[in-house]
Structures are given as C-alpha cells and as structure tokens.
C-alpha cells in the first residue's frame, strides 16, 4: 500500500492533500447567536453547563440550615455571605446516606455517595460529572476540566475506578492548557485549519488501527482498561477534529489575560484561596468561550489539610481537638476555616454570574453542585451533609428553594441534577441509596 493510498482513505485529510489547507466546511453557521444573545440563531438555547465544587469538612451543625423551607428562605448564619445569590441557590438539608451495614469511612463515604451513588465507590461506576459529560460534553474541546486549589492533583471525577480525571493544581498551567497556543478564539475573524493538526490527527489513526492486535491476548479486566485508554485516545482525535473546524462565535467569550502570578501550591489557606480566585475566573472564561461544558473544582480534598502559616494544627486536626465554645455553640477556629470556604464558593458564583449572556448570565445556564465530606465535622458524621446547587441549568432548575428532606438519600440530588441537564435517567444509586425520586419541586 503506498503512502498516498493509505492517506486517501483518511477522511480528515480529504480536501487538504492537494496543497495548503483550503476550505474546510463550516457547518456551524447556525451557531451565531440570536439578537439578544440568549440563544443560538437556530432558536436553540445556549447549552447547559455542569460543574461540581467540593470542600472538605463542611459547615458547623445548626449554623448553615435555613429555618424556612421552600422559596424565600433566609440564609442561616454561616451561609450569610451567599445571600446576594439566594435566589439562584438551592439548599438541601436533612439528607443522609445508607451504608447498608458497610463500614463508614468518615471522609470518603459521603463523597462516594454524592459522586458515584455508591458508598463504597464501586470501581465500575463513573462519577456524576462524567456521566453528565457523556451527555453534554461531547462536542467541546475539553470533555471536562478539573482543578484543585490545595496543591495536589486530587480528584473525585472519574470515568471509572481505573480512569480518574486528575486535577490541575497550577493556575498558570491551567491557563496555558486552555488559552495557550492551541486556543482558537471563537470570535476571531479569520480561521485557517492548521496543517500540523491535520497531520497529527492522521498519524494517530495508526495507533487506533493496531487496537485489535493489541487487545487480542488480554484478559477481561485488562481489556476494559485498555478500552478506556482507546476511548481517551478517541477524545484526543475528536479534539483535533474540532480544532480543524471554525469555532462558533460566542458573544460572551472574552479571552482572559494570562494571570500575573500564582500563589505557592500547598495547604496554606490563604494561598489556596488566592489560587481558587484565579481558577474561578479562568473557568468562567473557559466555559463562556465554549471550551468545555463540564468542570470540577476541589477547593480542598476531603479531610481538608488547610492551615495557617505558623500554626501547628490544621483545619482537620482542629475539628478533632478544638473545644466547642459554650457561648458561640461551635468550634471557633473550625468555623473560621469554614467561613473561608463559603467566601470561596461565593467567588466562583460571582465569576460565573459576572459573565452576561443576553438578559441572563453564565450562572443562569449552569448547574453547579456544592458538596462536602462531613455533616458535622466535629463528630465526623455523614448524616445531614450540606448540599447545594447553584444556577438555573438553562431554565431547567427552579432556584431559591430550601429543600428539607429529612432522612432521604443524598442521591436524590444527583438524580435531580442528571434530569435537569436533560439525561434520560429514571433511577440512580446503589443499595439503600438507589432512588427513582428526583426533587420535583426544583425541576422546571
């Protein structure tokens, strides 16, 4: 087989082999926004965005749950800073998880139930963001984007137990990955497909063509893992394919300036918060510029290692060792750390809400899931884990509601969110946490 024959059957190179990159079809003309920017010209609304935001060690029991149930609730003491966004936030209280007699690991069981619907994180199960990315994240440059603010690549996002999506801990590296040399500005006037990208896509297919031969001798478990590798490789090919197409213009897309500097990566809380602020801005811009529709933020890992410079204890150590102040009714130093995380969540919402798209904002078409590991950090309980959702999911979520669901499984929030982003799914979770009941009061 000659080289030219071989390439002739590679469709992506069709039309470019005769010379320099000539016209590659522009199938996205219908993607121009309508007059007021709330929808694409075709009438389809701007697509929904899904994100998760995680922090370790939650809030202080009795200080975050709103007193009133339903709409028009008032933010409780600890969540007061979120008041300006009250009408865009739903709070879920009273939820629990059912361990079905399995051992409870105080920092893992909660996230396992919230992200995988399974208290033991059965390796066969993908995380909720990954399932949602399969549904809404297929046609963007990045299937999803993960960041962590405590200096480590920790993540809860995964395709399965064998494919985790590690977090980027460096804001500067994150900027480079999204807005570096390979970024194509959707609002830039001229577009020429890059011949190197075409060749890269073409030569990669030789790897895919060896797939069957490579898989031949593998056992079942290895086959599954290698299948996952080939799926990831296919994602790379799709990414290259997208780079060969003129991106759809996006009115709200503004390419951010490169961050001047980043804070040291580590567990000092002020550094983590500084880097979170940069990440929040970059993520909002990345989403507004159509680079992804799914993202995951870890402010800290479960069992938060946040600390002050010069202090011998950490946030986590304090939850164990600090006494409850009789007058205040909470652990004061622990409470302080928790307030920093409330402020950080506020910063993320502010960044998303600050991007105007027609009469709404980027937050309005997003659905951002807040979760944590413990219900009451002092006792490391996994009951009454505070959960929130922010954003209207492009009109699919009613917001500004406090859902008090005493004794119900946390997986009900997960099922609700999957339905809100348009997934055809009627049931989620395993064992005692399997549910077929979304919170219909928040579904529009």
């Amino acid at each position, binding site marked *: 087989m000659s080289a030219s024959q071989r390439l002739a059957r590679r469709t992506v190179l069709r039309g470019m082999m005769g010379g320099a990159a000539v016209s590659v079809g522009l199938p996205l003309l219908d993607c121009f926004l309508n007059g007021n920017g709330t929808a694409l010209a075709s009438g389809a609304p701007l697509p929904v965005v899904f994100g998760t935001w995680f922090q370790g060690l939650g809030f202080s029991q009795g200080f975050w749950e709103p007193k009133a149930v339903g709409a028009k609730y008032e933010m409780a003491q600890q969540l007061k800073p979120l008041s300006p966004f009250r009408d865009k936030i739903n709070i879920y209280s009273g939820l629990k998880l059912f361990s079905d007699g399995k051992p409870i690991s105080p920092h893992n069981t909660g996230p396992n139930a919230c992200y995988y619907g399974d208290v033991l994180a059965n390796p066969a199960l993908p995380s909720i963001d990954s399932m949602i990315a399969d549904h809404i994240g297929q046609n963007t440059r990045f299937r999803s984007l993960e960041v962590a603010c405590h*200096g480590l*690549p920790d993540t809860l996002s995964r*395709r399965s137990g064998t494919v985790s999506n590690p977090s980027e801990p460096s804001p500067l590296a994150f900027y480079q990955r999204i807005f570096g040399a390979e970024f194509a500005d959707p609002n830039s006037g001229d577009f020429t497909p890059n011949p190197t990208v075409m060749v890269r896509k073409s030569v990669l297919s030789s790897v895919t063509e060896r797939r069957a031969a490579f898989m031949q001798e*593998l056992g079942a478990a290895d086959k599954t893992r290698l299948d996952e590798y080939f799926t990831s490789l296919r994602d790379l090919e799709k990414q290259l394919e997208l780079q060969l197409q003129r991106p759809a213009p996006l009115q709200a897309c503004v390419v951010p300036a490169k961050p001047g500097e980043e804070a040291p990566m580590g567990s000092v809380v002020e550094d983590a918060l500084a880097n979170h602020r940069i990440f929040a801005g970059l993520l909002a811009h990345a989403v507004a510029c159509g680079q992804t529709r799914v993202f995951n933020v870890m402010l800290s890992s479960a069992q938060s290692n946040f600390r002050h*410079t010069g202090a011998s*204890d950490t946030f986590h150590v304090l939850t164990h060792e600090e006494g409850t102040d009789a007058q205040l009714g909470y652990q004061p130093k622990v409470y302080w750390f928790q307030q920093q995380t409330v402020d950080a969540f506020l910063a993320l919402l502010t960044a998303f809400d600050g991007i105007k798209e027609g009469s709404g904002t980027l937050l309005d078409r997003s659905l951002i899931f807040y979760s944590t590991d413990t219900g009451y950090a002092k006792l490391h309980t996994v009951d009454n884990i505070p959960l929130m959702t922010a954003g209207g999911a492009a009109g699919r979520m009613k917001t500004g509601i406090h859902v008090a669901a005493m004794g119900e499984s946390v997986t009900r929030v997960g099922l609700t969110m999957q339905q809100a982003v348009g997934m055809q799914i009627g049931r989620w979770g395993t064992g005692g946490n399997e549910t077929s009941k979304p919170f219909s009061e928040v579904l529009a």
Partner: protein
Amino acid sequence: MANERIISAVLAAGLFAFPAVAAPEPAASGAESVVRRLTPEQYQQIIADVFGPTIKVNGRFEPIPRVGGLLAVGAGKVSVSASGVQGYDAMARDIADQVVSPENRATLLACEPAVANKPDDTCSREILSTVGKLLFRRPLRDSELQPLVADAAAATRELKDYYAGLSLTLATLLVSPEFLFRADATQSSSDGSRRLDGYSKASRLSFFLWNSAPDGALLQAAAGGELDTEKGLARQVDRMLASPRLEAGVRAFFIDMLGLERFASLTKDAVLYPKFYADVPGDAEEQTLRTIVDHLIARQGDYRDLFTTRHTFLTPMLGAVYRIPVPENGPNTDPSRWVAYDFRADDPRVGILTQISFVSLHSHPGRTSPTLRGKALREIFLCQKVPDPPGNVDFTAVENATNPMFKTARERLGAHATEAMCTGCHKLVDPMGLVLENFDTSGAYRKTENSAAIDTSGALDGVKFTDAAGLAKAVHDHPSLTQCLVNRVYSYAAGRQAAAGEAEFVKYLGKGFADDGYRVPALMRRIAVSDAFYRVAAPAKMAADATAAK
C-alpha cells in the same frame, strides 16, 4: 552517583557471588498477567536510555494509586483519562521535536534523508524500526512498521519537511499502548502450562532489576531463546545484577515501598520550621536512598540492619536540621555535596526510621503525628493493615485537646484513650509512634515539647523499650519484617499480589532470603531466575467461560 565507585569496587572484588540454591523451587500456579502502565520514572528512564540524557521530559503524569502498599501494583489497575492522553501527546511531541532538532538529529538518528523536504522511506524505516524496537520492547512487525513509514512519508509531503513529518510519526510511538503499557505475550510449554515469551521475560526482568526497558543485549537474548533456558536466563540475570543500573532498580523499589514519591509535595510550616528549606525534602529522600543503596548493594548488607545502622550520608543542608556541621567540598570529602557520616553509638539517631525522611513524611505540616508514624511503620515494614478511623465518633471525651494543659503528643493522644471506639486502633500504632517524639515534624531532635519533657517509652508487639534505639532493635528482630519485604519485592516484580497458588513459592523465597543472610540482591536474583516468576495462569475470561460451561 556517589556510590558508583563503591559499587564498582565491590564488583571488581567479586563480592557478588551468590551461593548455590539449595532447596528446590516449589511448584507455583502463576496468575493472570496484568497489563501495567509505565510509571513516570520508567517513562523518563526509557527516554533517557533510548535518546540520551539531553532529551528533557516536560509535563505532568497522571497519578497512580497505591494498591497493596505499592504503586507498582496500582500501575496494573489504572488506564489513562482523556486529559491524560492529551498530556502524553503533548509530552510525546515535545520529546520527538527535541530528538529531530538540528542539534540532536545527527547523533540520535540512524540516518539522514536524501532530500530534506521529501520523504525517504529507507531512512524512515531504519529510524522507526530501531527506535520502535526499544520503545515497544520487541521488534516491530512489518504490519506495524509499514504504516508508520507511510505516515512519515505522507506527513513529510504535507508539511514539506522530512523532520517535521518524522517527528509527528515518532510521537505516535510514544502515545501507543505498546509503549505506555506493559502487556505480556505468552507461550505454551509442552506440558500445557503457559509462560511469558522471550521478549516479555526480558521486559519483566529489566523493569524489575533496572526499572527500565531491556537494553540491546537483553533483547538479543530474548530473540535467540537464551532466556528460555535455565543457564541462559541465569547468565542474563547475573549480567544485570552486576550492572551499575541495578542501583536504579533498587532505588525504584524502595521509593515505591517507602512512599518517597510524596516528598515531591511535602511541605512544613515555614514559620515554625525555618530550617526545613525547599531543598531539605529532596535531600532527606536522597539520604535514605543513599543509605539503602550503600548498605544493600555496595556492602551487601543484611536488610534488617537498615533499621540499626548508624552509617549514612549528609549534605550541609541536612546538617542544619541534624545540627551537625557538614563540610562543603572540603578536603578528603566526596567530590559531590554528599559526605559519608557515622552517628555516634550514643546518638539518638539509629537506622532509617530516625532519619528525617521517615519522621517528616509521616507528620503534619506543623506538628508530629505518632499515629501516622506508627501506622506507617506497621503498614510499610510489617505489611499489617491498620483500619481507618470510624465515622460518627463521639469526640466529647476528646474535648479541647487544644487546651494548653495538654503539652505533649502523649497527653493529647491520652485524651482519646477514654473513647472505646478509638483505643483499639490507637493502641496498635501510638506506642511505637510516641517513641519517635524526640524527632519533630521537620526531623530535628528535641527533648521537650511545649517545655514538657518528652517520654519516649513504648512497645511493639510485646517488646518494650525506652527510646528509638530500642524501637530500632525491636523492628530489626520483628518476626514479620523479612517476610514482609519478600512479599513486597515479589508483588513489585510481578505487578500484583502473590496468588493463592504461589503461597509455597513465597515461603520458599522467605526461607531463601534467610539462607542468603537477608541480602536483597540475592532475593532479587532468586525471583529473577525462578520459574514461578514467568508462569501465567489462564486469563479470567477463559476461566469464567470454563466456569460457565460447567
């Protein structure tokens, strides 16, 4: 490296002679072979071996989970995420660009194209087959090579540059599963049992002993069937054990077993521990590795003595934490920054558990953790699993441990002791952790905490002691210590925990380890020349089919 001279001296003196294996190897079942992803260190080592040390590997690797105490086992449980493939792809193109760059092409590539902007299939074939063989750890089949040569030609035509086309083609080799994953090929023996084929044997050997891909000589031995004979295998194993590259293999194993990769992200509070400079973690890790390599390879020492040796190596930076003046490049010292040092017989520092690496790694940023230290000691060196703390604990009994009346860690932990749910596990780990309280979280020696004298008495499985030297002796003599190492080395080499049908074999290794005076290279040899190491059981799929048929 500092130890190279010593190692060469040892080799020259013929100290690497191993006693004849007395007991016969018991039959072992083998297990299903496991596809392993290359570790970051293996990836980097292969690039350095194949293209030379001037080629830089830039980028971040996806983390590998620790399974059964080892990343080497976790490497058999992971795949690659979408962002991971993007990362590999960027790394691969960067490496390939460096290789074909005008500065490097003459030395790194086997030939030059006839015309710089036109395809040259003959040259491409030579380059891709040579490099491909080293990266895939076996010769490329014609069905693999032919499309690559064609790709290089088409890419050259498109980009009008031979090297640009070649670079992108080389990059695809580096994102190929044949490179990124170690998959075994097997062959049947006359009795129906299955074993690795020659090339897979070569890979298993070289990753085990050198933590890298096979060199040319080993691939040649695989091609010629040498590895399929007892004598031929032993000849190659002895060649590899005598090579200076053994040090990389031994280091890789101990980095994995001791979890030293965590030093990359270890920080200590800069205000409380100002001497824990940015270079200290790296030097602390290197100190322990040098102690290990010197003791186990250069001196052919007894593994157990690692816990009691007072011989080590220091830098001026470490000297600041140890409070020992270390001369820099002075006369009569090692030309590197490293200086051999013996702690005095009455010094509280004895063995690797009292080095900065162990006590700082298993501590919090601002304070020590007897619990973490005790847990690490049991899990890492004795292969015991300490359960995770329970949830929903009533900590009211632990109320206010921040109270200044609790001055020492022993007093703070004592507050836990009243809670029945906690005591079970804390009893397992605290008594040996508290013995190390003389070493603060940065690894520096102290006699007091918050002006209160530190009590370093403790116990390990019934053996009582009053200081770190007593703990060191108890660990040295612990009945689980040596078999734990045997289990770890075998799991590391095989990429999985030993199978039920290998229990007798692992016992045999333990017995042999004792016969060999607990010398680690001898243990590695015993595994490398065994039959069990290369045996493969039927894949689970076939086994499942067989079950279904019943």
